[in-house]
């Protein structure tokens, strides 16, 4: 990508707009994570959120991403997603680490089909953790996506088995983070927890961050959220530019993950997945 996104140098700017504030906070979180943990990885799902996260990491570390970008690959992503990964991992100078998920047979058969498929990703994540010994995983989840994610901490400890104990989360205030995972366990770091879907798009447009074209409407449909090709559905939309997406989001009350089958199978499917270590 050519550097077409040079921001104009602005004289005597004191005030920060909303996106500046989000960016500054995310950079602060990324730097705290890098300072306080020994072995970090950034979970790169290739979606709009983790692309923004990589962008923020390059801002935080002045053009560098000083930890691996980990793609836990289900092997079932859209072809456009793989193309994006292969292209931009090179262009952005990422230390791309790909780990593959185990076969579906190794996953809890009592889960509904889509949740089972997602749980397979959790298994892949656990294997990657065990193999590389990461003590911190940077993940691009947001509070506005889903009710259980709204309860997350910015630095969120995981048990030795990778599980999340929502009932016993440590206090977190004044940007002071609990960064000491017990031996064998890891932390999740959530630098864009405070962003919304609209923030992500507005920032993507402002910063000229590349995206996968599946997000833009074609033949009256587009993807709002990208997961495995077999369990992700497009939503009805005519938004063929980011500006149009933002106008669409301004008026919608349809949830972002409406096209993600696993959110709708049972009332508690998503929470069960998260407690077990899903993102």
């Amino acid at each position, binding site marked *: 990508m050519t550097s077409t996104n040079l921001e104009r*140098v602005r004289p005597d700017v004191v005030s920060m707009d909303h996106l500046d504030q989000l960016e500054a906070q995310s950079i602060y979180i990324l730097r705290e994570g890098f300072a306080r943990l020994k072995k970090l990885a950034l979970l790169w799902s290739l979606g709009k959120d983790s692309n923004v996260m990589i962008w923020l990491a390059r801002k*935080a570390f002045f053009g560098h991403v000083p930890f691996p970008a980990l793609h836990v690959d289900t092997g079932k992503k859209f072809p456009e997603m793989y193309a994006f990964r292969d292209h931009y991992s090179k262009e952005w100078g990422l230390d791309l680490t790909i780990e593959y998920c185990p076969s579906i047979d190794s996953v809890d058969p009592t889960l509904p089909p889509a949740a089972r498929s997602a749980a397979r990703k959790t298994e892949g994540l656990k294997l990657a953790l065990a193999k590389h010994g990461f003590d911190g995983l940077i993940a691009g989840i947001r509070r506005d996506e889903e009710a*259980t994610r709204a*309860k997350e901490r910015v630095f969120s400890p995981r048990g030795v088995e990778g599980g999340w104990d929502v009932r016993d989360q440590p206090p977190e*205030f004044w940007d002071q983070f609990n960064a000491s995972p017990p031996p064998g366990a890891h932390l999740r770091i959530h630098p864009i927890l405070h962003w919304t879907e609209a923030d992500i798009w507005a920032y993507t447009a402002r910063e000229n961050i590349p995206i*996968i074209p599946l997000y833009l409407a074609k033949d009256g449909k587009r993807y709002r959220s990208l997961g495995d090709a077999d369990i992700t559905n497009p939503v009805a939309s005519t938004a063929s530019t980011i500006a149009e997406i933002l106008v669409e989001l301004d008026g919608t009350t349809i949830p972002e993950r409406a096209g993600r089958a696993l959110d709708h199978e049972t009332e508690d499917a998503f929470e069960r997945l998260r407690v077990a270590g899903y993102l």
Partner: protein
Amino acid sequence: MTKIVNPTSLGMPNGTTRPQLRIVIVGHVDHGKSTLVGRLLHETGGLPDGKLEMLKAVSARRGMPFEWSFLLDALQTERDQGITIDTTQIRFRTKLRDVILIDAPGHAEFLRNMITGASQADGAVLIVDALEGVRDQTRRHAYLLHLLGVKQVAVVVNKMDRVDFSALRFQAISDEISAHLIELGVTPAAVIPISARDGDGVATHTDRIGWYRGPTVVGALDALTPALALDELPLRLPVQAIYKFDDRRIVAGRVEAGHLAVGDDVVIMPAGKRAKIKSVERWSAMPLEGEHGAGRSVGITLDRELFVERGDVIAHAGAVPSYTRRLRARIFWLHDQPLTAGSSILVRLGVREVRGRVVAIEKAIDPGELASVETKQIARNHVGEIEVALAQPVAADRYIDNPRTGRLVIEVGGRIAGGGLVLSIDAAQRAVSSDIVPVQSALQPEERSARYRHQGAVVWFTGLPGSGKSTLARALEHRLFAKGGSPILLDGDTLRAGLNRDLGFSAADRSENVRRLAEMAGHLARNGHIAIVAAVSPSRGDRAEARSAVDTAFREIYVATPAEICEQRDPKGHYAKARAGDLPGFTGIANDYQAPETVELRIDTSTVDVGRAIDGIEDMLRQTQVLDDGAANLAAFEAVRVTA
């Protein structure tokens, strides 16, 4: 093949730069917070399509009447237990702004979630049940809002339907809670009668509260102002890290207060070194000109090579923060184990991490109770004022001078256990000034310990006059020296004859006496010697500070000989003099000796002879890795020979 979309040409979005206001909802567990949040979402059109219908269907399936609070109880576990279990953030829009509602649970066990939520808020809604009135938890939450610095509070008196919308009842509660808040220094922005269940007073005035003339909840939220600008305060740039990814050496951090620009003269605290800002670095554009205000995450380079580390604070010359090893703070405590005087803690002041010790607990109260209860420890969910001694100097501000750099958190066992505001900074306990450059010893501690076969340490004997401290100290000195070690005796009375002859026996002078002993002993220990201190050192706080100054090399021995026996012995004739009234404030009979709670060793010299006592001390020093173990020592010796 994939076509990558390049969004450069897209127009800028609208609607993303609306002012945002973060509001926390607090109050007693059953007073209707979740119901209010559900109702607010409904009234402002913030509910996702189908959500209400879905929840109504779920309620019907479970055979329960629909409740607004179900909207928040998205977790299965929450529904089962019937209470909200963690901080949730919910967004909705009023005509004027985007509001982020932070729902903090009211259950007493989950106070840490309330604090997590409230610490991020610009303002708060405090909810009170019209029937039950102000409860302990209401007061506790009000107190914590004050402690967290949330100054804009709207009070809602909920469940007015349960008191027949009585204006009298409302007024009584309004008066009580307003008086309580004002006492805490918080003036309520509004007190609003509502029925969250039915919607009265939430977004609209209804006939049932026709007597009420103030704003609705939505109106009151629109009247609150977003967080104050910190740009006006002196510059504070705490250093998060130094990056050397390329040929630049970038000092990275977030401007917590004030602003900076290229060319500014800055001072790096606490060391006091000076430099000029050479550039403000930035990816993916040219280095920036102009002023960078509070809230910006920046990276700067300096015009000279200085030793800068994470935790330093960069300020403008002439407006630097204080630096100290001792400060007082008002804190709230969230840990299961109470905080006691002498506790060893980890303090985080911004990004600075420093070990410390609680020297004294000056006040401890349960903010839910109206009366303050005098205790010497701060229990979970209580607040108090503490004095902390820090192992290294830190740069800090008082909270009233700078709300961002004047607050700290306390960690126990790697987990945040409390937090609070810096009340005062003891300037007398400053670090060495930048003009003083300590010269380090030419020898490494390992070189000395290889010769002496022990690590540097301070063995601190405390106990009543006549308890046997000096006798034990001298015997220990002899034993260690006979084994080839390097013990050095520091006797309290001996030092008072010279180094400390300017000191009397007032509480302050005694503290200073102990501080000097500890400084000197610590210096010897760091240089590989075993400093043996024999000093009454009656104050637990002073001893805690001595331990803090010496750090991990400190071994405290309580010579716990009974007072009657000490007085019978009276080796220096002090007890007799004191009884005759010639030694006012003598510790032996003034009854002001504070016995240690936890020590490395306790010896009663009325029941054990000196030789056995010294054996015990030797064992303790071996077990705590001061004295080298015989076998390990031999192995180390072999290893040295092999490498040689």
